[in-house]
């Protein structure tokens, strides 16, 4: 396999989306590294950025430019070596600008799928709709003489089905980045028996060059990441419904969100995470996964209700959070939605009462941002759970069962054959979800 040859013409489908824009950035940076090698000076490289939303393309290019600038400022030591032969480029600022110009010159933004007809490698990051993906793959495959490889960023659709339906002869695999792709270290790699060694080896090399941690997932809908997240989210939603006997639903949502963030020492609470990913996206992924689940119903009527009311979460173009289960001001949660009434209630109106009901957070518990930086994360997390066991307060008890359920989900992913090991599940949660400790551990069940 000639690695560089495969990079000569890439297309990113859905390039202006949240995931697509990050994948475009990483692809363009990777291609540039090869383009700038002296031995490749006669080769021609192209990265097509295809998205149906024409109006999003200028913003996409501005985003890419800003990100390439950041990347260049971080690797100027290396860039000076790469541009050593350019006598006209002397100062760091000149070299950084030249690099940005070179990367940007690779990228061809457009709205037409035909751009992919010349590609050797296609990244797919369109919406999570199996039929759409199949249609696009089939059309490109039928019109592209290069027998291109298809790397799909799907987080839930089984790859085997895509391969068969689009007649791709094993030239497709799951290369699932985490959000945001430029920052999260994880790539979930989903191969199918029809893949040959060449495509898998290339995928591993590419992930390595992009400085990603690869976790292999078997081809079962939802894979490891969503396999955990969807079940964890459903547990959280049901936990809120259970608490409804004690308090109004919006207060229960606040309580569960607080437990999953502060008590479980996670970067965000479960409802904030649903909002971040998108209420609509989470609902959609559950719908994709559900038909493949036996003895299990991955579905939440509460998500249907919110979706019907037009509450979708996700982010605005500037990265700020749209309203979902929660309402945000400058990144802080200020109001909570009551899905039954559709009204948002200010947190200040009930937070003190609910916090008192939950009971205090033991002194052993560190905020996530402190815990995640510690070299002894597991030991410190274990101490927190030990404290919960001794405390006997409501919040601590709910946190314990929540963590035990999260562990059960992890073990199930292994026993269902989705993950190769519990370590792989933990790696996905640590690197893809930024958790400070893996869900499969001893300290939550002691």
């Amino acid at each position, binding site marked *: 396999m000639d690695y560089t040859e495969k990079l000569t013409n890439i297309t990113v489908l859905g390039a202006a989306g949240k995931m697509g824009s990050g994948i475009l950035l990483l692809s363009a940076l990777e291609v540039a590294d090869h383009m700038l090698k002296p031995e490749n000076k006669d080769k021609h490289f192209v990265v097509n950025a295809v998205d149906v939303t024409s109006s999003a393309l200028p913003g996409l290019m501005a985003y890419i430019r800003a990100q390439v600038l950041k990347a260049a400022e971080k690797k100027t*030591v290396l860039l*000076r070596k790469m541009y050593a032969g350019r006598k006209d480029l002397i100062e760091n600022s000149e070299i950084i600008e030249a690099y940005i110009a070179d990367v940007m010159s690779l990228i061809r933004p457009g709205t037409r799928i035909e751009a992919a007809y010349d590609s050797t490698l296609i990244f797919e990051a369109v919406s999570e709709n199996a039929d759409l993906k199949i249609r696009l793959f089939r059309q490109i495959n039928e019109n592209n003489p290069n027998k291109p490889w298809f790397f799909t960023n799907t987080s839930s659709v089984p790859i085997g089905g895509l391969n068969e339906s689009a007649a791709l002869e094993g030239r497709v695999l799951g290369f699932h980045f985490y959000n945001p792709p430029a920052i999260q270290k994880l790539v979930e790699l989903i191969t199918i028996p029809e893949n040959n060694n060449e495509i898998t080896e290339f995928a591993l090399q590419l992930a390595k060059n992009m400085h990603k941690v690869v976790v292999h997932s078997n081809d079962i809908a939802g894979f490891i990441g969503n396999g955990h997240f969807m079940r964890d989210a459903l547990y959280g939603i049901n936990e809120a419904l259970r608490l409804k006997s004690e308090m109004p639903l919006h207060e229960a949502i606040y309580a569960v969100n607080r437990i999953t963030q502060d008590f479980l020492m996670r970067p965000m609470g479960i409802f904030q995470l649903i909002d971040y990913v998108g209420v609509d996206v989470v609902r959609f992924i559950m719908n994709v996964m559900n038909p493949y689940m036996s003895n299990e119903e991955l579905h939440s009527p509460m998500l249907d209700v919110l979706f019907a009311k037009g509450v979708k979460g996700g982010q605005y173009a500037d990265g700020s959070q749209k309203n979902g289960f929660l309402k945000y001001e400058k990144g802080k949660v200020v109001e909570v939605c009551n899905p039954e009434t559709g009204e948002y209630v200010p947190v200040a109106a009930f937070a003190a009462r609910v916090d008192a009901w939950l009971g205090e957070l033991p002194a052993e518990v560190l905020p996530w941002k402190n815990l995640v930086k510690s070299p002894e994360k597991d030991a410190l997390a274990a101490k927190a759970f030990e404290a919960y066991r001794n405390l006997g307060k409501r919040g601590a008890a709910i946190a314990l069962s929540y963590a035990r359920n999260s562990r059960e989900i992890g073990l199930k992913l292994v026993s269902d054959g989705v993950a190769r090991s519990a370590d792989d599940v933990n790696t996905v949660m640590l690197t893809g979800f930024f958790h400070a400790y893996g869900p499969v551990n001893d300290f939550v069940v002691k």
Partner: protein
Amino acid sequence: MKPHKKIYMIAGYNTVSMGTGRKEFNPKKERPGLEHYLKEAGQGTLSQIGGAAKVDEGVVGNFMAARFNKQAHLGAFLGMIDPQLRLKPSISVEGACASGGLALVSGIKSVLSGSAEVVLALGIEVQNTVKAIYGADILAGAGWFQRRKDGQAYFFPGQFSDRAGAYFEKVGREKARKAFARWYRNAIENARLCPTAQEFDNKTADLEAQGLMEPSPRSFTDHLNVFDCSKVSDGASAIAIVSEEGLTRCGVSVSDAVEVVGIGHAADDITALPEDLTRLTTVAHAVKQALTSAGITPADLATVETHDCFTIAGILGMEAIGLAPEGKGADFVIEGHTARDGKIPVNTTGGLIGWGHPTGATGVHQAVTIWEQLTGKAGNSQINIPADRPYGLTVNMGGDDRTVVAIVFKKN
């Protein structure tokens, strides 16, 4: 140069050295510019000498405001500091990181020539206007531009990393790195005693362990880590240079003044490469001039403010000054002789690594520190000045050992 008449420095003032490390520093927020720092430092000195009417001339040392702040012509800012300075003679001088030292030399010469009895000398740099990677381009102007292309991304750290590499060959890497870490520890411990120091709030428990962090050639330099480097700083310093008549005019008692008793000033060919990377020959030359004109030896010094733009520069400085024999600077530092309780306390408020390095201000800052120490005004940083060693020395270096100003001060 030996002054042919009495020259004193009085009424020193340092602003805070602002930049990373200071609690109030936020790179994303708008910050004070040149005007703020010039005004604060200038007025800080003027208020101690009875006002601007006492001043005959002004001089501003600055390196690269023309690029950091897109502002040249700093001499004409004096009238902004105080309206009574309008229309008085004022100049700005530049000699890279020795610009502050050159401001002092220029002021001293004015007083010696008789054109002024009181000179207001300022030094200033406001560098946090650009990210470090671009600041490196600007600071590289202290070297020969024809050699910039071959230099490293972080140009001066790269130059001194090469010196560190050569020094490793000479004395052994382990010992040298240990000395660097000790130098860093001394710098931070001293800075913690000085409220204007950039590292005043530094709380790191094991400073030497931090200083020993392995350098990262991929992202920085081969032989130096970030703790081996001086800070990126915004700040200004001011001091008044006066004759005996000027002293009287300002109403300042001689015990509140330091006397300038020896001056060394040397500039070497910027286009030439150092003959020996392990020696600071221009520093050695200027210091020898200063000590000889003062009629003293290094053994007579109570304290030294030396130009530790990098730990390696601090250690090579100990050898160039003559405090340690050649190749023994590392041992001298490791043995604790330069610590505040050592044989000769060096950089008692943290130096360029601990206090900060607003490049054009540094030479003046060094003089202010010596003035504070020799007149008992150093607050928590105060060291003991032995009666038989009433001298302090400043060594201010521009570029890679190209322009050097060394001044010997005597306690009155």
